[in-house]
């Protein structure tokens, strides 16, 4: 197990380094440059050259990359002039809020999607299945910004029970102090996830309900609910683990559209603004974080799989 983890971590490290290299190169090949973005349209060539020299932007690309890596090892992600704060600080300010939004919506989605998927599987090809299927297809096909707008119109204009804007605040505590403002962004984000998850759970449960072990369970004279909850559900939920692992990067990167729509000060908004302003240090830092989250997410999903599925946990010997 240890050896397996070490191998996987080594692979993950290589992937992360490759990702930083690719992002670094692409960002620096973009026309325009950071100097113009910071100094403004009226900056003279001399000013730009001086800025570039000061920041080291006139050195060869590989040298810049080496410098970047060296600072990275020391835990320094760089400094953003536009925000006038270090990248680490900018990220640590927004990351908790984004994670609050993502975790809350994912938990909500799983809590709703699992029973829906199970009901669909048990009543498959009958009206509950068709109804849920139709609704989730509709949710899946609706663009998320449109969905968000509809939510705002419905719940803060037509029937004004909820604020249209997410809580604004510097710290997590400030955001949490206004839970009503979180409802719309969390629900909007969750609706799409429910649509995806319930379809996975449905098909996985349908497969499992056709397995021989379910027939064995029925032959013991178990009630239908015990057959489903006690025997089938656990096996049917395995795909969800993989889905959750794949979802981890989204947890960090934030939901760009939803954060924009509700003006929620999270990672998505940070990345969006940095991209507009060519804020290289922020872009690099966020990309790095997401790539780390991606590989770690895959790793966690595998380990989690081993924890719940005894066949993976104890697989010994033959392939």
């Amino acid at each position, binding site marked *: 197990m240890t050896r397996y983890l070490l191998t996987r971590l080594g692979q993950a490290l290589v992937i992360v380094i490759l990702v930083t290299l690719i992002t670094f190169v692409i960002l620096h090949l973009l026309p325009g440059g950071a100097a113009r973005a910071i100094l403004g349209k009226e900056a003279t060539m001399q000013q730009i050259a001086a800025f570039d020299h000061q920041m080291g932007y006139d050195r060869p690309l590989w040298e810049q990359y080496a410098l970047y890596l060296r600072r990275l090892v020391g835990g320094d992600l760089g400094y953003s002039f536009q925000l006038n704060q270090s990248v680490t600080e900018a990220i640590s300010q927004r990351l908790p809020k984004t994670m609050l939004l993502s975790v809350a919506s994912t938990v909500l989605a799983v809590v709703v999607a699992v029973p829906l998927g199970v009901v669909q599987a048990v009543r498959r090809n009958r009206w509950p299945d068709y109804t849920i299927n139709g609704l989730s297809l509709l949710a899946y096909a609706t663009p998320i910004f449109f969905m968000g707008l509809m939510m705002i119109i419905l719940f803060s204009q037509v029937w004004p029970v909820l604020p249209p804007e997410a809580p604004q605040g510097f710290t997590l505590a400030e955001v949490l102090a206004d839970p009503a403002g979180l409802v719309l962004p969390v629900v909007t984000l969750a609706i799409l996830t429910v649509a995806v998850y319930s379809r996975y759970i449905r098909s996985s449960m349908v497969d499992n309900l056709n397995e021989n*072990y379910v027939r064995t369970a029925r032959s013991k004279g178990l009630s239908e609910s015990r057959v489903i909850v006690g025997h089938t559900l656990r096996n049917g939920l395995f795909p969800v683990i993989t889905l959750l692992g794949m979802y981890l990067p989204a947890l960090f990167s934030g939901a760009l559209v939803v954060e924009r729509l509700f003006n929620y000060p999270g990672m998505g908004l940070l990345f969006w603004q940095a991209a507009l302003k060519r804020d290289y240090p922020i872009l690099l830092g966020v990309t790095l974080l997401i790539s780390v989250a991606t590989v770690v997410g895959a790793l966690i999903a595998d380990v989690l799989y081993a924890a719940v*599925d005894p066949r993976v946990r104890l697989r010994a010997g033959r392939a």
Partner: protein
Amino acid sequence: MEAANQPLLRLRDLSTDIALRRGTVHALDQVNLQVGQGETLGIVGESGSGKTMTVLSIMGLLPTGGHVVGGEILFDGRDLRGLEDKELRRVRGVEMGMVFQDPLTSLNPTLRIGAQVAEPLRVHQGVSKAEARERAIEILRRVGMPRPDKIVDDYPHQLSGGMRQRVVIAMALIRSPRLLIADEPTTALDVTTQRQILELIDDLREEFRMAVILVTHDLGVIAGRADRVAVMYAGRVVETATTAELFRSPRHRYTEALMRALPESAQPDSDGAGRLYSIPGLPPDLSRPLTGCRFAPRCQFATDECRTTDVGLTPDGSGTGHEFACLHPVTGPVTIAAASPSVRTASEVSDPLLTVRDLVKEYDAGGTGVRRTAGRVSAVAGVSFEVGPGETLGIVGESGCGKSTVGRIVAGLEAPTGGRIVLDGADLATLDRGARHRMHRQVQLMFQDSYAAMNPRMRIDSILTEPLEIQQVGDAGARRARVSELLDQVGLPRRALERYPHEFSGGQLQRIGLARSLALSPRLIVADEPVSALDVSVQAQVLNLMRDLQRDLGLSYVFISHDLSVVDYMADRIGVMYLGKLVEVGPAHQVVRAPRHPYTQALLDAVPTPDPGHAPSPDTTIRGELPSALNPPTGCRFRTRCPLAQDICATEPLLQGATHQVACHFPLREEPPAS
């Protein structure tokens, strides 16, 4: 055997329909059966005969769309069809127990053995967790599970197939049922394990005084274990009698045909090869209305009366309860054992087509799993044999013995770890890529599951043309001609070319598989369990075809199978493998009738014979499980289970002898003098 005045279970005119998207299949049509306490009823029939649907109807476990549409299921005098759901579940969970066909998939992979075994107690009797565990250990010990106190906390995948079947049996028995239903309980298991499981069910029936319904396609299994037998065909019971009576004088023409189709009853013909009786045609489509005797279209004795009159079960008048539904019944006795052992002229291995020397194949254990296990699995450990032109070498052995690996290596699908393979005088290891590629023309493989081995989206036309294209044989016109010729050879109509694999039956697919292996005019065909998935009557058709083609084309076969009677029928010489080693090889009739290795003897004794009078000798039973190939025993690999093993067996015995060779320090017999 009990005199059953009041049978425990009685089916009266039971009819079951299964609604499918394209119509309704009338799976059961007025089935009448009964079982008394302490009695074993055997139900035999081929696939689609309704034997499994009968027991699923009793248990109320019909698949989606399945419904009992008529008749009564009287269990202890009460009609189960009229019971409330809750009461029905109680009857199912407490008074009945069922053992399923495939032990590998009938247990929940993520629940511990103990929890699964004791679940009926927890649910129906409200037994505490601790007591349930104790009871589970107790019943696991009773079904012969080693170290039950440890296994109770294991997961299913940690156990072998035989052990898992014991778990399923334990699960059925823990509620002390009055009726045990076993649906093909040993079909997925090896013969030595099969014997252990069948003996266990027998013992438990006596101990618990249960009624047992044993469903199987294997007449041998029925002959040894059942008190009474019901033969089913196309959703109906066509004959029922005591076991001894049925095997002595079957009356229904279908029963007779089933018995004649067994490889054991091969009748010698002019060239001494012997042909099997095969039933022409296929069982009827049960989604259409049927009139008359359902076997009539395939019966050579059928008259117009058979095709129009509905024939019911009628007693034969002897008062023994022998009933049959046939207008032109068999009058004389039917003998299964061949009149004379089919001795095929063992061809002299003067210039072998294939020579295999010291073949070794090892696999890395573990690999990409979460937990890596160091070590190597020794799948094949120094196997040597020859196959002459026009000869059939049978390779038998239980699962995991390496027989399929040998076949795959010979066919060039896998590279050996060590050893030499000489084909037609050329050592495969010395050939360059191109020459090896061309070598594939000489050796072709035929698979067990032809459907899985064919691309479902390719028409038969493309499936048969593909090998010719890969090997660049002829132009398009020549290939078309060749494909038509192949179809003629395997006895399929030309219009089969435009169809897809799913449109064919198992036997037809096996013919197509054979045609594909013949496409490149190979000299050797490696057939890996070619008839294991087929019903007896269809198996006979395919075996006959393989023999005809061998005679006409001068083919050699390496015929791999776990079924000794089939290999005995097909092979000139037989090699017996155990855990990667060839332990015995010799002329087929000698290996089967006068085996020299104790393992061969045990294997032969474990095969159930379709003869109720035959009692297997108890002292040759081998117990326990096949050791792991990861750390095989040193010396003779069989010594850990061998009744004759002594200290010297720790040194490896060599394969010795002239024509009938054995690798054993204490061979059961001396080699007969060469004739």
